[in-house]
């Protein structure tokens, strides 16, 4: 089932590689670890990484 969700993330984000990376990172991290209260920090870091990558690509 995990594989199916990953496939769908890739399929749905075909126009936004950075969003795909963000969602895959978060999904895999959540599947393997319980982030507990750390999740806010983790999510924001991933979003910032996304924004950073976008900034470098100059597209949003």
């Amino acid at each position, binding site marked *: *089932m*995990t594989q*199916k*969700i990953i496939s*769908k*993330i890739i399929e*749905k*984000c075909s126009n*936004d590689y950075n*969003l795909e990376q*963000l*969602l895959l990172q*978060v*999904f895999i991290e*959540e*599947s393997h670890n*319980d982030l507990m209260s750390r*999740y*806010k920090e983790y*999510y*924001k870091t991933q*979003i*910032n990484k*996304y*924004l950073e990558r*976008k900034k470098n690509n100059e597209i*949003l």
Partner: protein
Amino acid sequence: MKFCRIELKNYRQFRDLKIDLDSPSEYDINIIVASNGLGKTNLLNAISWCIYGKEPSLEEKYDVMHMVNTKILEENGYSGIFEVSVKIKSRKKDENGTEEYFFERIANYRYSGDPSQATLISNDFKITIFKDGYEAKVLETHDDTTLFINRHFPENIKEYIFFDGERLNDYFVKEKGSAIKSAVELVSGISLLNVIIDRFKIIRTEYSRQIAKDHPEIDKIQKEIDKTKFDIQNATNDSNTYKDQIHKAENDIKIIKDRLRGCEGLSEKIDRRDKLEKQRADYRKRLKEANEKLYSFVIEYYPIMKFYPAFQKLNSFIKKQNCDDTQPLITDNLDILYEMINNMKCSLCNNALSADQIKLFEQRILQLKENNKGKSFQLSKLLSRLSYLVEEKIESFENYHDEKEKIFSDIKHYERELNVLENEINDIQRFLLSTSNPENIRRDEQRLAELTEMRDTNLVKKGRNDERINELNKKLNNLQIELNNALYTLNTNKNIEKAIQVTDNAIKVLTEIKEENTAEIREEINKKTNKIFKELLWKKHTFDRVEIDENYKISVYHVSGQLGLGTMGAAETALLALSFMIAMQEVSGFKSAIIMDTPLARVSDKHRKSFAKSLLEVSRKKQILLLLTPSEYSEEMKAVLHDNFNNLYVFYTENEENTLLKRGE
């Protein structure tokens, strides 16, 4: 995942029991045959206790008895610390290698001489995971073990893994649907998607708040959003409470209805009996009074009756005397005249009498004496008195027949009514005696009425509350749109704005995936259940299809198009539960063994052979542990299973407190 070994120590009637379920043959079907009372259901309870820390079938029916083996308690005078343990070794083999899981629950109880007083000192549960023979991980915290258990044996649907044949009717009640849905969501990753979506929403709210700090209009909308969310949460909590209460009430109603099956209307019968008994007491009292009246009547009328001819004769005689004027005059006046002359005053007005008056009285006396010459004054007096008495008695005797008739009629009426009442009371008593423990049943019926009322009240409350939640959600949605518009139109922090846009996109994509997966999984489970059920079912020509709706409510259709779940026999219902379970496991990705306690309790002999064949087929792919009574393991079952089972064990006992195990033949 299959069970390889189960070890029980000091758990109820199992002082020291080890069951090996390994060394599989082609068919991984394992059978334990045990007479009632030897611990089949307690073996299921032990497994449930080990994995979930609960013993459901004991908790529902009774106060939980002491878990520690009675024999060891007796040997130690109910004094000391006693360890109870259940350990289960299981194995999962797939393309990634072999993993072994060792589930271990150990509880310690302290006794201080009093058999009724036990203190639980510790209750520890851990899961040790071995990967390709090496210890890889030990899960000990509650969160870790719960997560692991829910991914392998979801507690919400444990009935489908630890299958109780006595409770078949519980399997397809509509309340079960939501439990199945959440279990499927949990094991298929949908719950994880929900967690991620919720977390993105929280992050988004935080970003919005940051912007709101600099923009009061956004702050206002944000505060309204927070308040609405708070209201939704509260209303959802209320709805969940109502839902739990409804669910609990319906479960209890189901249990009580099962218990009351065949004893319907008992409460009315008891009420009727009580009413009739009151009426009977009333009629008995009236009959007693009528009999007393009869006694008084006899006492009163007996002498009259006896002397009635004499009275009549006497009455005729007196009347004749009067008619013939042979009756002496009443002489009372004469005595008065004498008295007045002697006293020389009037007895009436007390005035003194003159000499003329005295003379007049003396003349009158002489006149009276002349008239009464030759007649008896004494007889005259007696007859005069008797005349009244006799007439009174004769007159009263004329009512004798009427009064007698009335009293006897009353007595007969009361006796007749009493007879009718006695017959009806006896009929009810016979019915009650044939029913075990009528007072308990009556209590059950009263409880049933209370629970039904409670459920209906909660259904109404939940309905109102759900409407409110819908309205609040609409309001929240509008507020979110309003907030988005405000954010995009105002000159806000562009970086945060971009971050909000990212979270929105993430939420949108994940929600789409979640919805698609939810629908696909249900559709796939539906398809597989149909396929497996059709393969296993022997009455293929009567069955058309199974439908599983979005709330996981299962319906079965006959070829005629009619809904058939309620009309299915026990064997078919058990088979449907089994098919659904296998489909659910295959689709959602968790794979566990299935343990079936007395699955054939309600299955007729003629269907056992077919059912056994179906089980055998299932056991090619999935481990099955069957707990059967000797009568369930009938010739029909043996004919199919005897040459194919993996292990056959028999529970036996040398004393009631210790169940032992031997290999069967």
